[in-house]
């Protein structure tokens, strides 16, 4: 529909600008301008102390060389992708299942909701520290569980079974999966809450109509729930991808990128380069390479899950 035609639509436009004004003003000032500044810095050498010096695309060229030689930025890209693939599909599926379980009208639902949201509510730093401890090779619950398991198996099988204690965060192969498990645990409540809000807005009468039509639970899910949840799913997917691409706190606290660079993620590289190595220009370039990747991914996501306006039959 062409814009600005007719008094009603013009009025809409005016209200729109009014409505947008305060939010966007703050947004431009504190979000957009710094982003533009960071973009400018990505073409500079900037050690944060002295004024930036323009060096053109050298930072980006360096990133390109790093990727082609499988250097550390490449490793961080790979690790971040590993993290995203590990946490997003499983996390979202579990969250949806959980939200649907909690939406079934059970008693005591708020206790469950609260306990599933509890991991989200605590600061990520504190949670990371608790998990570091759970994973501790000597005093942690997990290795204790392994020991109990090996003792149990020894009893059952009648011979000595020794499951050696694992290094978890100290083992290059186990560190990232360990962080992934912790992150799924943490993010579950978050996505669950969003899915719950989405589920709540699906009117009952649609389900009732489907039941009258003879649809079983899976059919109902496919024809009513899933399509109407599309905007919610799209939202969660985009936000999850963005969140996964920016994972940092857990890695910083639990492994600081190690062991043997098994867990260094993109933002960890950005952080190190910006504040330890004083290479803010290079860090900004990395941030924008990340941005480009995520932007493309998000466009694909939004397209796949297109389902904005809903028409009620």
């Amino acid at each position: 529909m062409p814009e600005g035609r007719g008094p009603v639509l013009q009025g809409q436009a005016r209200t729109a600008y009014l409505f947008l004004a305060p939010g966007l003003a703050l947004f431009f000032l504190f979000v957009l301008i710094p982003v533009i500044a960071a973009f400018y810095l990505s073409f500079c050498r900037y050690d944060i102390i002295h004024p930036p010096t323009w060096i053109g695309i050298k930072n980006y060229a360096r990133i390109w060389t790093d990727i082609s030689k499988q250097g550390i930025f490449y490793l961080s890209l790979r690790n971040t992708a590993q993290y995203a693939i590990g946490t997003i599909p499983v996390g979202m599926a579990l969250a949806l299942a959980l939200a649907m379980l909690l939406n079934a009208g059970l008693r005591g639902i708020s206790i469950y909701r609260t306990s599933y949201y509890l991991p989200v509510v605590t600061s990520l730093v504190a949670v990371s520290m608790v998990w570091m401890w759970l994973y501790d090779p000597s005093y942690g619950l997990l290795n204790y569980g392994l020991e109990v398991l090996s003792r149990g198996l020894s009893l059952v099988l009648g011979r000595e079974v020794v499951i050696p204690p694992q290094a978890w965060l100290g083992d290059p192969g186990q560190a990232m999966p360990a962080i992934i498990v912790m992150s799924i645990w943490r993010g579950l409540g978050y996505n669950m809450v969003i899915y719950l809000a989405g589920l709540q807005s699906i009117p009952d009468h649609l389900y009732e109509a489907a039941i009258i039509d003879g649809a079983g639970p899976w059919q109902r899910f496919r024809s009513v729930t899933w399509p109407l949840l599309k905007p919610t799913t799209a939202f969660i997917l985009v936000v999850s991808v963005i969140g996964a691409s920016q994972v940092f706190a857990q890695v910083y606290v639990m492994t600081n990128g190690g062991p043997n660079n098994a867990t260094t993620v993109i933002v960890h590289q950005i952080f190190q380069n910006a504040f330890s190595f004083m290479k803010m220009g290079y860090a900004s370039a990395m941030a924008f390479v990340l941005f480009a990747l995520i932007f493309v991914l998000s466009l694909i996501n939004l397209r796949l899950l297109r389902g904005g306006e809903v028409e009620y039959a």
Partner: protein
Amino acid sequence: MSWRGISLLALLAAAALLSGCAHRDGKIELELWIADFNQDTRGLIDDELVPRFEAAHPGVKVNTQYISWAHLDEKLTISFAGGVAPDVFQVGAEYVGGMAYRGMAEPLDDYIAQWGQADDYFPASWNTCMYRGTVYGLPYLSAPRVLVYRKDLLRQAGCDRPPQSWEELADAAERMTVRRGPVIDLAGMNLPVSWQVYVQFLWENGGQIFTEDGARSLLDSPEAVEALQFYVDLYNKYEVCPTAGMPVAGGAIPVFASKRAAMEINNQFGVYNVKKYAPEMLDDVGIAVPPGRKEKVVSVYTDWLAMSPQSRHKELAWELMTFLMEPENLAAYNATLFFIPPRRSAADTARFMQDNPQLQEFVSLMEEYGRSLPAIPEWFEIRTGLQSAVESAIYQTKTPEQALRDYSRELNELLSERVEAGYAGG
């Protein structure tokens, strides 16, 4: 959301926004940042040292902030960027090069000449604050790394003195290691996987990280490769180092103090941990210089105080620094944290030093064999890259020679960038 609720929130928000003004009560404010602290340190500084300083300098207020190392770099750089850097701040052993290079630390040669107390400092500590002959700070606490070992276990293994060479070290460690299947119950030699351990071996082998002028890497030299090979062998060939299931260095109860290791290279925390977790073992703990191959070396890591060039009250900042450096104050500070005071007069008079005879051995070893890291601006990148190289060798994704060759190349590129850029202002 009722109208009342919203207007209440709005009022609250407005009140909050308007109340953020700073007061000016006419005092000169000095900002002090401390990164090594605990409960006792804060009590010492907040309740004793600062009030005494303020009493001696009426009209001056000291605002102390305690910032953990994990966040120090961020906060420091952003504060410098914004022009609100602290007047006096604490930094670590690898910082002097970068800070001098970027103009984040004020050269103190003139102040020190007038002060005249430089000679009281241990050379290995003092050198940590020097870059290209100029002094940029005052050492605040020192941590020399020596060989800490169990005298009883060594005797049981048939050795009457601590190992004096690499061969003896590997041999003694092997004899003292206790295994149970794939699990090591008692590690002969506790070594974390760390670039600092590697540098120790490197120096013991007569190697260097850089050339004299700091312009090129020497990590591809035969000495460097031998050192890494030995380190890797301790892990993978002799298998005397802790495996998974051992307390992680720095977490929970440390390996040595939990009686799961016979020897380790550690700073004075080796003794501290034993005192704390296994005091009955204290008499069996021996201190010795780490077994060298071509040289005997004790690496010393010192944290120090610097002054910001942005400070508007440099004379006062210097007085604050020297006040904190007075022997009793310095000793008191180090006592709270169990570090070695970097000044002889402080180390001699400190009660806790006298109460712990083993600490005095640390001091004498430091005097005789102490060495600190060479000052170079790129230490943060180097320690990250070197750590990766060491890890890749120990986890066997590369051979020691490969790892060092690759890293040496990277390091040379890094160093050449600096020579290019040259920070003569901009």
